[in-house]
Every structure is written in C-alpha cells, then in structure tokens.
C-alpha cells in the first residue's frame, strides 16, 4: 500500500518507519491459534527478519495477538494486559473465532465479536491461518503504521465508556484495576 509521505511531517515519517520495523509481540496465546506462532517465529518463516519478535511483559510489548477463541475468563486477562501496554499499541485478531464466533459461535463461555471489547487493527481470517497469512497480516499492520493510521490506543481511551459497558456486560463481577495511563 501507498505510504502517505506527503501528509506526514518528516519526523512523523521517520517515527512511523522505525516503529513498523520493531514490532514486539506480547507472548500470550489465548486459543488454539497460538500453535501457529512458533511456526511463524522459527527458522522456516523467520518473522524476526521483519522485526517481529516476542516480548515478555505487557509494558514492553507493542502488539497483542488474540490467537483464536476467547473465553470470558481469558477476556478478563486480555483486558488487563491490553490496558497495561504502552502506546502505541496494536491488536491483531487471529482466526475466525475473533471475527464472529467461528465454530464456537454457540458456546456459553466464549465471546463472539472481539471488536466490542478491545479495538482491533488487523484481522487475519482462517481456521487456523497459516504462517504465510500471519506474516501477511503483520505486513498489513506495518503498512497501517507507516500510513500513520494505527492509533487505536487513543481510540480506546476516547471511547472507554463504550468499551467498558460491553466488557462489564460479559464480566459480571467487575474487580479490575483502573489505570490512569
């Protein structure tokens, strides 16, 4: 995709260029899709040549991968992880389950639409997406960062009430910390 060099200042352009080449992925697998991450990271597909690598803690990470179905119990942890991550932060939703329930559409314990709870930058469809698809999704995210469109962290803060209302609809007993960012 075209990078909009003209509408960005040189400082923004350099900032976005360097951000897109160092994507630290939170090492947190939620569903069955996490099994594709080792394949993406190791020697055959070698995602690190694109600057994609793991990060141990939320505060060091840029990208949160939601790999597959998300139980309501896991959603609680995902929200805490997402809120602890520092700006700029990106979310890649991985697999059919995050889009509209996937094969767990009638489960009593998995959410259907991820975008209602945290803002999503890129969707990778498939059940499961193969490492090529995962890398294509990361490429899409890099293009988005280079264009300067990836500001979902800000969008989350601005629309926090809407997200909180959706989250509290699922997590009935809300005992979560508040962050002042």
């Amino acid at each position: 995709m075209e990078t909009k060099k003209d509408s960005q200042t040189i400082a923004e352009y350099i900032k976005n260029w360097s951000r897109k080449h160092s994507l630290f992925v939170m090492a947190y697998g939620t569903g069955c899709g996490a099994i594709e991450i080792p394949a993406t990271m190791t020697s055959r597909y070698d995602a690190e040549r694109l600057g994609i690598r793991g990060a141990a803690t939320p505060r060091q990470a840029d990208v949160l991968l939601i790999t597959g179905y998300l139980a309501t119990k896991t959603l609680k942890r995902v929200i805490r992880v997402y809120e602890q991550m520092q700006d700029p932060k990106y979310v890649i939703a991985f697999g059919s389950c995050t889009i509209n329930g996937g094969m767990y559409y009638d489960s009593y314990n998995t959410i259907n639409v991820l975008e209602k709870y945290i803002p999503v930058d890129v969707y990778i469809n498939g059940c499961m997406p193969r490492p090529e698809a995962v890398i294509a999704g990361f490429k899409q995210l890099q293009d988005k960062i280079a264009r300067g469109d990836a500001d979902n962290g800000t969008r989350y803060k601005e629309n926090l009430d809407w997200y909180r209302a959706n989250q509290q609809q699922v997590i009935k007993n809300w005992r979560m910390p508040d962050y002042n960012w």
Partner: protein
Amino acid sequence: MLEQEQALLSQVTSAFPVKGKVMRNRRVEVWAESTTVSSILMYVKNQMGYQHLNHITCIDRIEDTKFQLVYTVFSHQTKMTLFVKTFIDRNAPVMDNIDHIWDQANTYERELREMYGIQFPGLVGAQEFILEDWDEMPPMRRDFKTEEYSEKTFSSLPGRENTQDVRETISTRSGEEIPDFAKKYSRD
C-alpha cells in the same frame, strides 16, 4: 471364555444387591442404587484391588428426569475395568461424596457440582471451579439453551443466519458457474 470377568461379576453381585453384566473382554458393569455406590467402591478398592479411579461421568437423562452417574475403576493386577452405574433424581440431585476413598474424586465432584448442579454433602473446595461469575443454570444440563445464551450475552454480527452454500454466493456474485465436479458436494 471371559471367566475372569464372570468371576468379578459374581463376586460383586454376591456381596451387594446389584445387577450387572459382562460387557466384553475386560469390561464389567454393575447397576447399583445410589446409596450403595460408595460402599461398593470402598469394597472393590480395599478387597479386590481396584485401586485406580479412572473417571466419574454424568449423563443427563432428561427424558427420565434422572442423572446417570458412572464410576470407572481399574485394577492394575487383572487389567480389568469395572463400571459402577447409578441413577439419581434430576430435580434434587444429591450424591454421596467419595473423596475419602480417592482424593482425586474431589476434582471430579467439584466439576459435576458446577457443570450439572449435583450436590455432594461434605465436599470441600471453593464453589467456583472452572467458570467465573456464573449465575445461570449449570451449563452442561441439556435444558440449558447455549445458543440462546450466547446470542443474548455475546450477540454476534449479522451473516450467520444465512446457511446458503458459500460457493453459490460466490458464483452469483462473480457470475461464474459452479463446475460439475463440485456440484455433487452442494447442499440441496
């Protein structure tokens, strides 16, 4: 032919008022009253060497308003599996707690309590086992409408109600014919 199994069956049926049959090679089942199950399990564990509790299973017999419980025990000496089966009332599901016989029964019983609402008097452990903040009917009961609950709580996007074959959608959208070799897989 199946002497070992017949011997096991006759030993259990002579000690307790139960019915039973040899299912097949190394598989024996007995049907017991729910009140005698714990004494049968105690007996086969201590007297007959059935040391290993494989599993406790619950089956929801909603047509008979009963829960069927299946206790599976295994002997390492004879390599035989004994199934102790019983029915309990579905409307007031109470069963004897057997975690004094096997400690690991505690885990199964807590799961049954959460997923089917069966009460085990004297069961130690938190009320919450796997589910968090669950205030509905126990979800593994067959009269729990899981799709309805999912739609109410998680509300999916439109598009799922169309069960049309995806190839038909693509072919009408792109104006291409479905090839003959693929038509035999079409939904009619």
